[in-house]
């Protein structure tokens, strides 16, 4: 197995990481950088729990090899909040009751942030479309959709 030294900016911080050729970005974040907020729900790109932003785009990090990310800027759920200030979507998802077990929540937050970045005033259908790849088994989604609407208003 070959190893690669890569440079990435994760949540605004420069990181140099040694990764094997077959290591996914999800594993790199969780195992090399201890950023365990990014969750492993299926390792198959189907549940969305491991969604992160790569250069601003939401991506299932279990479907990307870490070695491919050399030079990339990555945002995980740990990077959403500012110094002491939560991202509006983090506040509204608590207020609207869009969090239950919390396992899908990091991926939902990242997908929502990506949507709001490219479309600050999404319609309900646009919100549903943007989150269709993020499975949630607890909430029934409506409170999550409400929280994205509320975040857009802030």
């Amino acid at each position: 197995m070959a190893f690669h030294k890569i440079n990435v900016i994760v949540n605004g911080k420069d990181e140099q990481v040694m990764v094997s050729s077959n290591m996914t970005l999800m594993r790199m974040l969780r195992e090399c950088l201890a950023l365990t907020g990014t969750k492993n729900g299926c390792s198959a790109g189907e549940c969305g729990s491991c969604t992160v932003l790569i250069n601003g785009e939401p991506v299932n990090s279990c479907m990307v090899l870490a070695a491919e990310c050399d030079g990339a800027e990555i945002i995980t759920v740990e990077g959403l909040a500012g110094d002491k200030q939560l991202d509006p979507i983090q506040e509204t998802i608590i207020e609207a009751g869009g969090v239950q077990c919390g396992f899908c929540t990091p991926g939902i937050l990242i997908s929502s942030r990506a949507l709001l970045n490219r479309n600050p005033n999404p319609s309900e259908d646009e919100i549903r479309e943007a989150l269709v790849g993020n499975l949630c088994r607890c909430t029934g989604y409506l409170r999550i959709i409400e929280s994205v609407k509320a975040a857009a208003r802030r």
Partner: protein
Amino acid sequence: MAESDPINAPSPVGENKPRIDGREKVTGAAIFADDLQFGNALLYARIKRSPHPHALIKRLDISKARALPGVKAVVTGEDFTGYIGLYLQDRYIFCRDRVRYVGDPVAGVAAISDEIAYQALELIDVEYEVLEPVLDPEFGASSQALLLHPDLGKYVVANFIFPKEGTNVSNHFKIRRGDVDGAWDKCAAVIERKYRIPHIQHVPIEPHVAIAKMDEAGEITLWASSQSPFAQRNLIAQAIGVLPGKLRVIAPLVGGGFGGKAGVSMEALAVAIATKVKGRPVKLLLTREEEFYTAFVRQGLVAYFKMGCDEKGHLMAMENKFYWDGGAYTEYGVNITRAAGYSSSGPYEVPNVKTDSYCVYTNHPVGGPMRGFGMPEMHAGLEQCIDELAQQIGMDAVEFRKINCLKTGSTLVTGSKMHPTGLLQCIEKTAEAIGWDKKTSPSAPNKRRGKGLALMWKAPAMPPNAGSSAWVELVEDGTLNVGIGGQDIGQGVFTVAAQMAAAALGVPYESVRIATPVDTRYSPYEWQTVASRLTWSMGNAVVNAARDARQQILTTVAEAWEESLEDLDIVDGVVISYKSEKEIPLKNLVIYGLPKPDGQGWRGGPVVGRGNFMPTYITGLDKETGQGEQAVVHYTTGAQAVELEVDLDTGRIEILRGVSTYDVGKAINPEFVKAQMDGGFVQGMSSALFENLQLSNGVVQNPSFVDYRIATTTDAPKDLQSFIVEVPQDDGPWGARGIGEHSMVPTIPAIANAIYNAIGIRFEGPPFTAEKVYLAMLDAGMIK
């Protein structure tokens, strides 16, 4: 808003407090079991599984796997001879002589990397003698079927479960009430129906994970995503032959449970392997594929209903036969069969009932508890029959339900009396909100629109003496640590426990923290986080603990101030006297007590309150008749209605609106109650429209999120309304009873009834997929 508020509860009970674990869950700080870091000592476990649904193990050779560099242990059934199981001990940790489902664990490997563990599995050589599998529960119950558990008669079993030795029936629950055979002649209408409810999977987004470690002294620690740390301590310890006190279970947050992480499933495998590599943590993380067929599944059901009513619409008789597809091991599933039996009338008063509920071994995945515990499956058919019967005598289905539904004091199918219930209010509110009397037009010419409604009831299904305990401890700053053994699986019980502790002691909600993670060495005992029982049972324990602490504090202050207890109170963390108008903040006395005057000494001391709760009033039911004084602690009742459209061009069903109303006794946190109703509705909808664990010769055909579809954002209805009715539970904290599971019980029949209302077609069972609906419309000549 609550419909009524008969109990005057102190703040913050009844208030919509924010989720206590909200901030950690939105920042990525929340720790789940797979997030724990174990460093380089960690070993990775993988499981060699049976490829056959039914076979004898003729030869098992692990020598090559053991010789692979990097492999630290290979274990098999040879190493562990003990049985395991919650209500019926019918499982080995690893198969010993026989495999009974595709996925049955045959051997386990621990290696220094996941890759090596997988390689080792390939080197394990197993020779099988393949046997005829049992793939249908009705056939399985017959004398023609091969016996899957020849030792059934020897298994250790709870005294309310009745296995039939020499058959595949691991529990036969009977109701014999009144004279069913004599009742049919008096009926103006009688219908008979058969339903087939498929297996489904819980699909928590977090897969099962367990990490186990045995130290040199033989003490074992298990970290697991678990609804049942205490039950796991007891059952796993017994099975591997150590005392329960030697096994410590630490249970971080659970990423969705729905029953699938209750009892014991894969956790025993990790512990068993860890005992062979002392000092090293061993991690077993199920793949999503394994999750679908080696974790518990919801049992399949073949159900026969016969029911009749008189010309005025009074239900006269029911005759039910349930064949539960319990799978290879029914250690937990036997009690689902029982619960369905003692609830088999549905939420109705019926004078004559005969029920036979059979739990049947098959060579399918292991059936276990899932949200609703048999009730969604049973109500799916029963609540359609109610609609059909009403239609046959020309009565409105809501009117029919109002006449027959359980009211306070109604006689139940087990012979006991119904406690105070708001079921009638639930029906009325639901019917009103869905606009039952108004016909609405379809949104397009190629659509048909329909409405449907269904009722439900469900009791916590558990041993009669399932207990809870709690402690509260005050800190130097006057804040409160609350110890509980119940688990937050998303339902919000940590928040609700904090609200109840705050209210009972008299401190602000913000000053309460829950002592997590649940750890069997430090947390107080809790039977399991199941049965929608925590708000009620653990809630009582928390309240008792907080009141105990309150009593200690007030006694100290009363002595110090030479006042009587009745004049003292604790408000917002301050002890006050209504008589002398003195006050003292809790922080000034809860650790160091209070000085006696003139340096004469001290009184009081560190305050720790303790409380417990266990129902003491549950009686057994007669084995032959299912009759008894009090079978269960209580029933939560409720109703759901839907409005939907069927697309004639595609068969696709769109749920336009959903309405839920439940009598929860008292909503400790009303928004959390509604969140359960919303989430349960969508999970129920998903099971009605999409979900089916497709089994072919015992092999699950669709073990992935692509092939096993669950509801997504685009499937959720645009409009969900949830209403709370509060008729208090006499032994619940401020009257509360459970809601978690109930929210998905009536959804399948409500949707089925609405489909019938729209297109006049009924189905043998869910899922009502577009394909199935389209083909049925074609068959019926509705479309060409």
